[in-house]
């Protein structure tokens, strides 16, 4: 489980996150939703260590990452996988080298063991025989799946997905959602998804946090969302604007 306690973040004079308290549950798809500029990306960046909050605590299973020594922080980071919005695959490496990269860096596997693990991960994301292709030679949906395969190459405990459906057609989007959901449940991962795709929210969202103008406006599960929509105007506006009923 990941817990945010009183997290505050500003950039110069612009206050982006206001006293955020939230919990992200193990084995669940935890979705952060909200409109652009609402603080979702900054919140995720704080959680993965790309930004440092001005105050507060970010606790990964009893380990406050903001007060850890560099060595201990690296150990936590080895338990984190991330699927970036633009996939962030290394374009000078082949698909196989991309997935093997964290294994080569952090495991003691032999080349044969690494190859076996790469093939297992590729198979898990329903891709095969693209080992020697470069990211520029595969489609957007395949890149996302390779991104997921790279994220799960090590035995991770936390998965962060930043806009996993952006730039994908609706059918591929659903396939990616299903894949993320399966992997989360199968490995018991704490999954944090940053999205404004309401179809994703209603399909796989177990635990949902709605951010509005840098503040946590609502938190609950999928079943409560429809009810909350009736009571919270900002949430209602956000859901209606997505044209999803």
């Amino acid at each position: 489980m990941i817990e945010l306690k009183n997290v505050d973040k500003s950039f110069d004079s612009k206050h982006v996150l206001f006293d955020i308290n939230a919990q992200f549950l193990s084995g669940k798809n935890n979705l952060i939703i909200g409109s652009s500029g609402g603080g979702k990306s900054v919140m995720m960046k704080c959680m993965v260590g790309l930004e440092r909050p001005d105050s507060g605590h970010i606790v990964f299973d009893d380990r406050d990452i903001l007060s850890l020594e560099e060595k201990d922080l690296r150990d936590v980071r080895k338990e984190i996988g991330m699927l970036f919005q633009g996939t962030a695959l290394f374009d000078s490496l082949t698909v196989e080298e991309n997935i093997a990269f964290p294994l080569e860096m952090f495991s003691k596997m032999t080349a044969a063991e690494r190859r076996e693990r790469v093939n297992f991960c590729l198979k898990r994301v329903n891709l095969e025989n693209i080992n020697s292709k470069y990211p520029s030679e595969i489609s957007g949906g395949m890149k996302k799946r390779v991104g997921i395969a790279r994220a799960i190459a090590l035995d991770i405990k936390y998965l962060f997905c930043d806009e996993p459906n952006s730039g994908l057609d609706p059918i591929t989007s659903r396939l990616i959602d299903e894949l993320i959901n399966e992997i989360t449940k199968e490995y018991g991962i704490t999954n944090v998804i940053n999205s404004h795709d309401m179809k994703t929210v209603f399909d796989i969202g177990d635990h949902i946090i709605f951010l509005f103008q840098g503040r946590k406006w609502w938190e609950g599960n999928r079943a409560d969302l429809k009810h909350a929509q009736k009571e919270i105007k900002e949430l209602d506006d956000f859901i209606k604007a997505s044209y999803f009923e």
Partner: protein
Amino acid sequence: MNLRFFYYFGHYLLFMKSMISRPEKTNIFFKRLSEEMYKIGIGSLPIIAITALFIGAVTTVQTAYQLVSGLIAKSVIGTIVSDSTMLELGPTISCLVLSGKVGAHIASEIGNMRISEQIDALDVMGINAAGYLALPKILAGLLMIPLLNIIAITLSIYGGYMAGELSGILTHDEFIAGARSTFKGFTMVFSTIKAFTFAFIITSVSSYQGYYTTGGALGVGESSTRAVVYSSVLVLFFDYILAEILL
């Protein structure tokens, strides 16, 4: 002086400091180092060879054109070509060319990784991105650019000799006698010190510019341009400083 200079200089020093950490895996570090040595060294060899040959040839022809007095021995041309090549033309002109070729390549490669979140991916994995990306490039530059300088000097002198011989400006013996007459070992040491200094400037400034790229494709272009301009100006500035200090 503009105070922003101190801000950016301090930021550059912090970037250099951030690179200093034990590599995650030594074998991966050496693999990356050898890849960068190949890219910088072998990749730059053709342009350096062409530049050096023509500079040597042109120096011979232009020196001969300026020597209008029959009282000056033609062997002086060999002296001027070899000394000016070792002192200035070899290291400085080669490194100005490399500022464009290597500097722009480093800045655009790292800059592109920055805007496509590849550097963020390294950070999330817990890898020291600056150390992983920039350190092998800087070390490769420090190892390969002085070697390229020696090749440039050799080819430039050879180009000068060939131009003199083919155009009948001076004979083989005159050129060699002139080139040997004033040769001092320190000239080569000085030339190598310059090449080391320029190598560090080109690779570190370009890595810094690439690493802190902002914006999209336009930002990558701007970083590459800044890398070339700043490293070229710094090469010329340190060319003067080193000449003042060491000669």
